[in-house]
């Protein structure tokens, strides 16, 4: 009986978000306030809508990445994926004028790469960090090879292609942000309320125990790899739309931004811990920092430094937490 009373005392926000995310939300509010004060252009409709549009790319990829990370594996080739997947998109769009065909081809390529990563890790038992590191370079090199380091411009004249990355609903809500929210909410639901989602947590939490309980660990991890690459491909399509081309330099550093954001958001490198909502907040925070710093005319180079430092800090704190449990 005592415990029931305690539950009611805990605030609703805490119940929904969990304690660690509560802290994150507070940080979010603080940072938001800081930038609003520092620059009068920050807290404007135009800027907020820009931020939403900007974070839609890393967030969609972050959803897939988080799911994979929660299952206990990583994929750091998602940056190179951004460039590689744009190739079939643009090539087929230019050849056939059909956005739909291009998108299908792009997603297919993305899923295939996910399948390859998944097989390498689950069947050949190669460490996922190194495997996807190798993939990171292989894919990037392939892009250089095929494009000969020249961007493939969009000749298709497809309006949807332009709109999806750049258009806004009622001049406020970017279509990409709508897509982002749909994907986010969909997967939050899946991770929280389906057997599949809970199994991902189980596998990441303790794969051996999960196995003994009859969960097919390999199948779950394999599916997570495919999800990660496919969602990263969606980001790639949005990026290509923004750039209006398939660029060989696209996505450089992307994987590290996503990693930093997601770890910041509480998804643990060791697996089994973290939520998509947390990942969202993490991406949002980094998005705001980048946007805000841009408003303050801070060089982009600093973003690299800050992101790197955040990674180190976040992992160090993660380690400290682990040692205390």
């Amino acid at each position, binding site marked *: 009986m005592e415990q029931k009373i305690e539950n009611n005392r805990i605030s609703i926000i805490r119940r929904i978000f969990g304690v660690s995310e509560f802290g994150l939300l507070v940080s979010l509010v603080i940072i938001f306030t800081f930038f609003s004060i520092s620059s009068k252009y920050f807290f404007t409709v135009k800027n907020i809508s820009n931020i939403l549009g900007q974070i839609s790319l890393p967030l969609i990829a972050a959803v897939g990445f988080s799911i994979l990370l929660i299952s206990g594996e990583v994929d750091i080739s998602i940056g190179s994926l951004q460039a590689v997947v744009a190739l079939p998109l643009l090539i087929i769009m230019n050849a056939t004028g059909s956005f739909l065909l291009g998108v299908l081809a792009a997603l297919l390529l993305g899923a295939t790469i996910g399948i390859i990563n998944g097989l*390498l890790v689950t069947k*050949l*038992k*190669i*460490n996922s*960090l*190194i*495997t996807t*590191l*190798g*993939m*990171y*370079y*292989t*894919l*990037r*090199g*392939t892009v*250089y*090879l095929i494009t*000969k*380091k020249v961007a493939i411009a969009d000749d298709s004249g497809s309006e949807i292609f332009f709109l999806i990355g750049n258009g806004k609903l009622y001049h406020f809500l970017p279509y990409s942000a709508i897509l982002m929210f749909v994907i986010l909410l969909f997967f939050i639901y899946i991770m929280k309320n389906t057997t599949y989602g809970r199994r991902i947590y189980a596998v990441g939490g303790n794969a051996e125990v999960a196995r003994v309980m009859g969960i097919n660990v390999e199948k779950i991890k394999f599916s997570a790899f495919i999800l990660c690459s496919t969602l990263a491909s969606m980001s790639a399509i949005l990026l290509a739309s923004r750039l209006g081309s398939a660029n060989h330099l696209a996505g450089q*550093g992307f994987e*590290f931004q996503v990693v930093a954001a997601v770890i910041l958001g509480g998804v643990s*490198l060791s697996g089994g811990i973290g939520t998509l909502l947390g990942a969202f907040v993490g991406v949002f925070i980094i998005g705001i920092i980048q946007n805000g710093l841009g408003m303050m005319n801070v*060089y982009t*180079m*600093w*973003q*690299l*430094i*800050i*992101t*790197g*430092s955040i*990674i*180190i800090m976040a*992992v*160090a704190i993660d*380690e*400290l937490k682990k*040692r205390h449990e």
Partner: protein
Amino acid sequence: MGILGQIKRERIFGKLVLFNEIILVVVLIIISIAISIGTPKFYSTTNILNILRDSSMAIIAGIGMTMLLITGEVDLSIGSLVAFVGVVTMDIINRTMNVGLGVLAGMGLGAVVGLVNGLVRTKLKVNSLIGTIAMMMILRGMVYIYSIAAIQNYHQLGAFYEIGNGYVGFMPIPIVIMLVLYFVFLFIVTRSVMGRHLYATGGNYTAAKISGIKVDNLKLLTFMMTSILASISGIILVSRMNSGQPNAGVGFELSVIAGVILGGTSLGGGEGTLIGTLIGVLILRIINNGIIILRWNQDLQIVISGIVIIIAVYIDSMRKVARAKIITT
């Protein structure tokens, strides 16, 4: 499990290790022959010296990376470090008109970065893979902040030019530097107490600790040596390019690691030889050289490096599985 079983297993496994190095040399020879069939240009003295000179930077960095991997750690920031060192060295020489000072500044920078990497690992307990990836980003950002544009050679000092482009007799200086460093460290790793400690620390951290080895200090020192050696590579590079380029070294860490792993150094720690690294790096360089003189698309280099890393890691994990089977019987 009598003596006979033991001896048989030692032969097989012992052979596998020696096997590894012999196989590598064989692969090296086969590839070389294949390329020279494709074009006779391959076998010229100039080309071979070119290969060796180009390999020198990766080999020097590979020395440090090998030692670091033996202790069970890794450093992915050396690419960004190379760029940073190049920029800083050139800038300092420009300002002070003193090559020695510039070189010292570059190496000092390497030492500091190595120290930080080491502390992040030993004190903050951050996994070295993630930690040095983060450092890679931080350093790259810092290079661009130091200078967005390439730093040109305003000093035109001869000594500087000589580092990367000069000769001692018929030997290019980079090769000389590489050979000196290589043999010094070869001796350290194979014959010295510190070398033994490196293998013990990577092979079994706790056992090394129990044996009285100061394991964390050793790792710290190894991180520093890796970065200092990488900074030497950076100095050679900036001399050869004749300008400090902020975008230099991208992908450098990959080619070094690929060569080191190909050469038989295990990602798990406790194993690896400098000889293997030498051959591994050479194989990759020869492949790259072949791609160039056979007029293939240069971007294949990076693709091949990526594939090589995957294959090398696969073989590495196979070895680990085989070993685990032996231990548990």
